[in-house]
């Protein structure tokens, strides 16, 4: 809590997304165990952590698709998990999300995919929809691909289309799930640049969830490191690299051994060898 106050004072800005004491479990396993986050308006915030820490889960919690065991998530002044369905849907119109897979509708072409949220939520005449769609596609450099089907796109293009769709309704916040994973260096560069530029040009607030440390750090104004259900470190990218925590150092520098051991927990190597047969 104190942390929030300081943040807010430092920048004279309020947090658009406030996560407090978030707990979430999948079966027996606690995915989040008391997470606090503040996402400032107008900034690109990064949430980094190894695979399987629950980064996607966190985005789904923010979008109200999952319900936390405990804790609150406030987005733009509204407590996401206390909203009625209708209010939640109206809040979601102010959020854009880019899924890791792109999640494009496979039976619609690129143009119709970007037009989809506009057509669903507005009664704009088709000529205006066309202007909006072409504008968004132009912003991500894919106006020429309007007629292609999702199956004809490369991975990087699919993500850019998903990006165009995420900003189709001019949202306040855009959530990016692993935007850089599995991209070649050029697409990676394009996506990095686009996230930053769209954020600044359209006055968005961006949340980038990723385990690609370098790329994410390059565009983030502020970053959180998640591990084992907790925020283990936070700060601007520059301060993070000076962090004293061993875990953060290992994660940020990609070292194979450290607090996260190279070896999966096992008995003594000697015992396994002596058994002769199969290891248990």
């Amino acid at each position, binding site marked *: 809590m104190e942390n929030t106050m300081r943040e807010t004072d430092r920048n004279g800005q309020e947090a658009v997304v406030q996560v407090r004491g978030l707990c979430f479990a999948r079966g027996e396993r606690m995915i989040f165990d008391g997470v606090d986050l503040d996402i400032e308006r107008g900034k690109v915030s990064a949430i980094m952590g190894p695979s399987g820490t629950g980064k996607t889960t966190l985005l789904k919690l923010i979008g109200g698709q999952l319900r936390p065991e405990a804790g609150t998530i406030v987005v733009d002044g509204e407590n996401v998990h206390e909203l009625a369905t209708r209010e939640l849907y109206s809040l*979601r119109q102010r959020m854009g*999300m880019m899924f890791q897979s792109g*999640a494009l*509708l*496979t039976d619609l072409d690129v143009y119709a995919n970007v037009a989809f949220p506009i057509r*669903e939520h507005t009664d704009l005449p088709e000529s205006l929809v066309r202007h909006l769609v072409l504008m968004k596609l132009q912003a991500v450099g894919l106006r020429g691909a309007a007629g292609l089907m999702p199956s004809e796109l490369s991975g990087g293009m699919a993500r850019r289309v998903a990006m165009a769709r995420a900003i189709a309704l001019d949202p306040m916040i855009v959530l990016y799930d692993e935007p850089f994973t599995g991209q070649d260096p050029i697409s990676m560069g394009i996506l990095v640049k686009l996230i930053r530029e769209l954020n600044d040009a359209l006055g968005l607030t961006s949340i980038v969830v990723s385990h690609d440390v370098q790329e994410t750090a390059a565009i983030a104004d502020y970053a959180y490191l998640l591990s084992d259900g907790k925020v283990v470190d936070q700060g601007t990218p520059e301060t993070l690299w000076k962090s004293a925590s061993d875990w953060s150092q290992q994660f940020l520098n990609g070292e194979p051994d450290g607090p996260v051991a190279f070896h999966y927990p096992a008995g003594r190597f000697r015992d396994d060898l002596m058994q002769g047969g199969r290891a248990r």
Partner: protein
Amino acid sequence: MILDPLQQLGRKGLAFFGRLGRAHLFLMQTLTGVPGLLLRPGLVIRQLYSVGVLTLLIILVSGLFVGMVLGLQGYNTLVDFGAEESLGVVVALSLVRELGPVVSALLFAGRAGSALTAEIGLMKATEQLSGMEMMAVDPMRRIVAPRFVAGFLSMPLLAAIFSIVGVYGGYFVGVGLLGIDDGAFWSQMQAKVDLSDDVYNGVIKSFVFGFVAVWIAVFEGYDTVPTSEGVSRATTRTVVHTALAVLGLDFVLTALMFGD
């Protein structure tokens, strides 16, 4: 050790009833999405095309063959009693009361039902449904409800087409090939097939089967384990469960309708 099979049984039972409960909640949610479709008939019409029209060909071909087989078999039996003029009645009654609704429901499950399950299941596995939710579009209303309505409406039509084509198949064999009197074939059929007893009951059956078949198909799709293996298993389950449900219900309905 003796507890293990028991525990397994209990777990399976719980899973089964849990699923059954989910299926009913799902149905309720689907039905609440139906009135909204009046404002967007285009969604249903597109699905009517893919669900109904694409099943049409297999229904036409199967109906024709089933009718022809009925014609042959019926003739062979009836001719022993010198009653081959009644072939029209036999063919028409078998089709209208039983084979039309049942066989077209089975074909529907194999052609349209499995396709619906695979489509919705793949949309789930590729996060398209999740993506829609995040775009503030309810997939129950946008994806499931139109498919449900389209399946429900097309099933009775398909069953009717099946029966009609079947009757002509029987006519072709009986009158065309085996030389039964043309007039007798039709006039006996007209006299003995009752509109309310036979035709209406057949139509009721086809509505019930359509409802169940499309319910199973969309539920299996929506409840899919979102992996490629999950989708393929759900598709198989749709066909198997629909077949069992249709045949079981057919017995119950027949007993209720023609039992006394």
